[in-house]
């Protein structure tokens, strides 16, 4: 691994703080009924996976796709926070003009094909995007997030198998946060060591990676991309993580996870704290510098809320009916 510059590390720190601030703000806005859509799946705790993945993308050349927990990737890619927040509020200036909502962020210029709300539904799309990369004889790679719960529906099996058969440039990343909604991985998977499924598809098994440690995530994705570009075919990574908030904000009351478990992850494995500790160890960065970054992200999120709230709601029949078909 090439040694990482202070600037790179601080930029990752910045992105992760931005995501955390954004998500906590969304949670509050939902409680305050300023975000009114019923589905809102927040990424707090998963930040290192997204930032570590996006760090290895040639944005606009390579490709990325995910499920409904999609805010973090959009932010890490550099999609305008105001447009993302406007989408949460169903506004005209949202990333999808208010038609997609929280679960369906996307940005074509970033080759971000979206958030998808049917569990596993985006996985064959990732296979198809990778097929296209190969068909067009490019060296583009495709990163696809997979929730641990999605490994148990048919899409996972079919999509990864096809990717394996055709040796497509897919980096498959399982975000294993231990629970599919409320059900533990151990209660839903015959073999709870999820990365081992790679073997069945002829996909390179990269094992488990500490999804809370962005340095390890970055290293794994870098290695994965190298593996693909040297002709080795697709890879599967199981990133171990934990989500700090409910599966969705609306079902907090059903969250059966142990409070102690959550507190322990926050205390010992928080991705932002871990990175900050690493930066301090390697480089001279004062508390004031971190505080400055934190404050800047707070301001960006505040500005995104102000922008979103000032944006109009789509209201015309023309807007409603636009884009059902390509004319």
């Amino acid at each position: 691994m090439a040694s990482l510059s202070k600037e790179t590390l601080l930029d990752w720190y910045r992105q992760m703080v931005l995501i955390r601030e954004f998500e906590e703000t969304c949670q509050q806005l939902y409680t305050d009924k300023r975000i009114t859509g019923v589905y809102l799946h927040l990424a707090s705790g998963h930040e290192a996976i997204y930032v570590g993945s996006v760090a290895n993308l040639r944005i606009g050349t390579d490709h990325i796709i995910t499920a409904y927990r999609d805010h973090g990737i959009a932010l890490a890619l550099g999609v305008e926070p105001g447009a993302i927040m406007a989408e949460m509020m169903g506004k005209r200036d949202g990333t999808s003009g208010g038609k997609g909502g929280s679960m369906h962020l996307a940005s074509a210029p970033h080759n971000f094909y979206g958030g998808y709300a049917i569990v596993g539904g985006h996985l064959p799309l990732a296979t198809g995007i990778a097929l296209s990369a190969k068909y067009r004889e490019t060296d583009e790679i495709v990163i696809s997030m997979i929730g641990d719960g999605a490994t148990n529906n048919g899409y996972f099996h079919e999509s990864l198998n096809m990717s394996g058969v055709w040796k497509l440039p897919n980096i498959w990343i399982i975000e294993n946060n231990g629970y599919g909604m409320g059900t533990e991985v151990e209660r839903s998977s015959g073999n709870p060591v999820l990365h081992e499924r790679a073997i069945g598809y002829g996909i390179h098994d990269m094992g488990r990676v500490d999804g809370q440690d962005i340095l390890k995530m970055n290293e794994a994705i870098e290695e994965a991309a190298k593996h693909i570009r040297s002709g080795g075919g697709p890879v599967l990574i199981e990133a171990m993580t934990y989500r700090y908030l409910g599966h969705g904000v609306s079902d907090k009351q059903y969250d059966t996870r142990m409070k102690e478990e959550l507190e322990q992850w926050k205390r010992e494995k928080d991705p932002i704290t871990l990175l900050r500790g690493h930066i301090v160890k390697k480089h001279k960065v004062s508390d004031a510098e971190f505080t400055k970054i934190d404050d800047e992200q707070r301001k960006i999120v505040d500005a995104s809320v102000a922008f979103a709230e000032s944006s109009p709601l789509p209201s015309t029949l023309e807007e409603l009916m636009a884009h059902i078909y390509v004319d």
Partner: protein
Amino acid sequence: MATKNMSMRDALKRALQEEMERDERVFIMGQEVGQWQGTHRVTQGFLEKFGERRVRDTPISEMAIAGAAVGAAMTGLRPVAEMMTINFAFLALDAMINHAAKIHYMFNGQFKVPLVYRAASGWGNQATATHSHTPEVIWAHFPGLYVGLPATPADAYGMLKTSIRNDNPILFSESIGLYPKPGPVPDDPEYTVPIGKADIKREGKHVTLITYARGLEWCLGAAKELEKDGVECEVVDMRWLRPLDTETVFNSFRKTHRAVIVEESLPFYSFGSELAAQIQEHCFDDMDAPIKRVSALDVPVPYSRDIELMCFPTTEKVVKAVKEIL
């Protein structure tokens, strides 16, 4: 226009081949499309001609075939995904309905999904309950998809070309029983059939017979039969279930004041019920008789020959329906 006589199978093959030659972005994926030469022989010789890159044999993975086609289309390719038979496409409904049909809208026009799902549809030869569906209305139910189902080799040729060139996701249903049937096909690689345009296959003034795909055969047969009694049937072949060319239907109905809708598929929540509702809504003052429907019977299709055949419309059933409303 000069024409050549050929089967619907050969017309489809010709359309596919010409579009692949014309546009490098067009490729075929599906079960047994290559080495096996296509289950219905529509892609016979394609693997040898175009190679494995553009003629892709897939695993038996309907969800992945349908979904991968969406992903490839979003990046600018133009996949033609063969679902082998429409019965198997049920496995892929989520990819087709939740993704192919909705992506352009849900992301506010950021992505296009130009793809064609080809599927052989229909019953016959004692194929039994799970292999005898003609369920195209399911796809036609959803905004975002187009549904085409040709009844003649010429339409098959022109409609498939149109579908491949169109920027929207399209279910293209091919009636299994029609594959071997011959007919004249325009000898022009630029021949296309407009999306959502019905075709009057026979003119008449006493009653309008409205149908699609295999139903055309029964309607033309009935028209010939009824001609002997001096009844002139107008036969409208819809060609597309979505967009639905109601204008052509209404214009014909306003002339004949009577209609029989003939569909190979099931009667509940069907093409016939939709069209009957629309006709009464828009042409009430022109109505001289109740609108009749000749549909498949509301039953799973059985194995045994005689009771299998009882399920479906026939020329005789169409004749009888017409006589009931004259």
